[in-house]
């Protein structure tokens, strides 16, 4: 494991007793100098201590044994009555072997037992709560509205599949309500009878439920919902996504975080954890919560307790689609690894998409539009940009003044910015970047409905606006800050578009990164 430098990692390392000497020294130094670190440490360590105190079942069992024994002889559990017969009362096993005097021993036994009594009361209650068998309710046990024997979907194909400890399922297998698909690694393309396509990415654990509900306990699903199949649902332990005509992605990380992103159309997001779903099929009670409407380009992160925050950026490869089955995986390392911006939580729900080695003709340009990047002529986009890493920004950001966008590069690179020729050149661009003299085109397709309008494919076709390509050489891995477009109030912003961002490795590195 690489050296921990992040405060949360250091605190976790301390609590899990895995800090190296250097890391321990760093944590002590931070605690000695930074009050915020002390607060954060105390907050998390306090939760850890309380968990240990409450969840230490071995200790609770030993106290429980004492209580059971005494209760069996009508022993009064009041601590007051423990005072006199203390020497005769067995105390819970303690590990200390230190020698103490008779008076101290008596007091120790009194204290040990008296203290244990409070713990017994709380402990037994907690123990019973904790060990109560409360598995997730099995929706399959609820009377199904559909014929359970009827197939609802088909496993069309798999890619780089490792079933591992789980049962193999052959391509072409029809899948029924109540059946599950589990695998350790790879991709599975599932086609519903309704035409909806769901691509699962492992490690995955999903179950087909009645009424077009796909229950995900682990993994990633990208759903392209067929026209007429609106209402298709994906359920996770903390949220239910209800489709409103769209394509969207849902993933559950190892850290139990759920990411929900919308690629097209809109969804209703219902939040809720186990507390609200104990006696009903998963997702059912969550549907009684007020939905949060999400539209194309939105992304949220839901923590294990249902807390919600904006997902700022993700790599598009995290959500594979059917087309992923037909393309070779990009070789080499990712060049653009992160994007951050100056929006505060609550100001936007839009989410940047990083596309590794993805810049080609007809590549989607923005997360909130279906516009495409294209060469301005049939020759296509400039060769130096082919298969560049690029960022799908928000076209709505063109209106935002004082925007700061931080793009993190993992290696020396040439960073490109595509600037709409209809927009004044901002100072942050002209002062640090140079105009290559080359252009890239934007094909603007206005609000198409699925299946009714498709952007023309191919370079040089249907180009609505031209963007100048600016470049800046970045000699080392670093984060580069970009600014906002300086559109004047009187300027008709509706006829302009947000800038694009792309990066290719500097020549010396190009062979080792995305080809």
């Amino acid at each position, binding site marked *: 494991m690489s050296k921990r430098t992040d405060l949360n*990692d250091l*605190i*976790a*390392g*301390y609590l899990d007793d*895995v800090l190296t000497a250097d890391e321990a020294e760093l944590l*002590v130094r931070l*605690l*000695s100098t930074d009050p915020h670190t*002390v*607060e954060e*440490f*105390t*907050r*998390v*360590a*306090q939760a*850890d*201590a*309380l*968990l*240990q*105190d*409450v*969840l*230490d*079942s*071995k200790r609770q069992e030993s106290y429980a044994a004492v209580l059971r024994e005494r209760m069996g002889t009508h022993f009064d559990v009041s*601590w007051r009555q423990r*005072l006199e017969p203390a020497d005769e009362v067995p105390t819970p096993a*303690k*590990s*200390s072997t*230190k020698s103490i005097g008779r008076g101290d021993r008596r*007091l120790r036994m009194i*204290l040990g037992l*008296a*203290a244990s009594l*409070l*713990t017994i009361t709380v402990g037994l209650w*907690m123990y019973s*709560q*904790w060990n109560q068998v409360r598995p*997730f309710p099995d929706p399959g046990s609820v009377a199904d509205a559909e014929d359970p024997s009827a197939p609802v979907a088909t496993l069309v194909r798999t890619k780089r599949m490792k079933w591992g400890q789980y049962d193999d399922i052959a391509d072409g297998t029809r899948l029924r309500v109540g059946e599950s698909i589990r695998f350790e690694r790879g991709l599975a393309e599932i086609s519903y009878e309704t035409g909806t396509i769901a691509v699962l990415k492992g*490690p995955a654990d999903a179950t087909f439920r009645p009424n077009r509900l796909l229950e995900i*306990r*682990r993994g990633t699903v990208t759903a392209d919902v067929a026209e007429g199949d609106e209402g298709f649902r994906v359920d996770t*332990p*903390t949220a239910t996504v209800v489709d409103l005509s769209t394509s969207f992605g849902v993933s559950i990380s*190892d*850290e*139990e*975080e759920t990411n929900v992103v919308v690629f097209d159309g809109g969804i209703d997001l219902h939040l809720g*954890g*186990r*507390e609200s779903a104990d006696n009903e099929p998963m997702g059912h009670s969550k549907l009684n919560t007020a939905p949060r409407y999400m539209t194309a380009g939105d992304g949220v992160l839901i923590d*294990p*307790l*249902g*807390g919600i925050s904006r997902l700022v950026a993700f790599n598009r490869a995290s959500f594979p689609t059917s087309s992923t089955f037909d393309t070779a995986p990009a070789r080499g390392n990712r060049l653009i690894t992160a994007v951050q911006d100056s929006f505060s939580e609550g100001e936007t729900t839009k989410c940047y998409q990083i596309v590794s080695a993805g810049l080609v003709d007809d590549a989607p340009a923005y997360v909130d539009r279906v516009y495409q990047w294209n060469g301005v002529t049939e020759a296509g986009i400039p060769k130096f940009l082919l298969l560049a890493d690029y960022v799908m920004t928000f076209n709505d950001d063109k209106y935002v003044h004082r925007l700061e966008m931080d793009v993190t590069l993992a290696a020396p690179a040439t960073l490109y910015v595509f600037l709409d020729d209809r927009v004044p050149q901002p100072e942050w661009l002209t002062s640090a970047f140079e105009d290559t003299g080359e252009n890239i085109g934007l094909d603007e397709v206005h609000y198409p409905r699925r299946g009714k309008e498709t952007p023309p494919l191919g370079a040089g076709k249907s180009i609505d606006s031209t963007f100048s390509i600016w470049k800046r050489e970045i000699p080392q891995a670093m984060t580069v800050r970009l600014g906002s477009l300086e559109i004047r109030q009187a300027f008709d912003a509706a006829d302009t578009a947000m800038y694009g961002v792309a990066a290719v490795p500097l020549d010396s590195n190009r062979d080792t990164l995305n080809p």
Partner: protein
Amino acid sequence: MTDREQFLQLYLDAEREIRCFLRMLVRNQTDFEDACQAVALNLWKSFDSYDATRPFGRWARGVAINVVYQQRRSGMRDPILFPPEVASDILDAYELSLQSEPSGAERVEALRKCVDALPARSQKFLELRYGESLSLADIAKLVGSTVGASQRALSRIRACLARCVEQRMAIVRGLS
């Protein structure tokens, strides 16, 4: 009420918070149990010096710091990582977090509800780590993950729980 009865009543009321504070400093379980006993004995011995107009818990935890750092000198299995001044800062932050708290039981109740609301997989992590006291390596094997991923998961769960407990306690304070 005799001194002994008064002491026991105060001690029992404050015991959980004393133990939790000690756990933050003393990570070795055997050292921790020894420290708890030593603190209880020292509290009883110095009970005469306790000013009844001041909160017992705060006084007790102040005594606890002195006791564990004396114990550190006399030989612990695993030494406490932090110098006394850092422990003192942590105690201040800890006391602040307990300020205006209706009762220790409220915090336990808040924790229970927060854990109840966790997904099953998160609860499993907690059960293995705290209930069974398993190592990260053993947990990773049981859940079919890596040590690093298991530690990150635990870290995330702890942070979530801390946040959740704080929020619930804020609500309790508002209602009380």
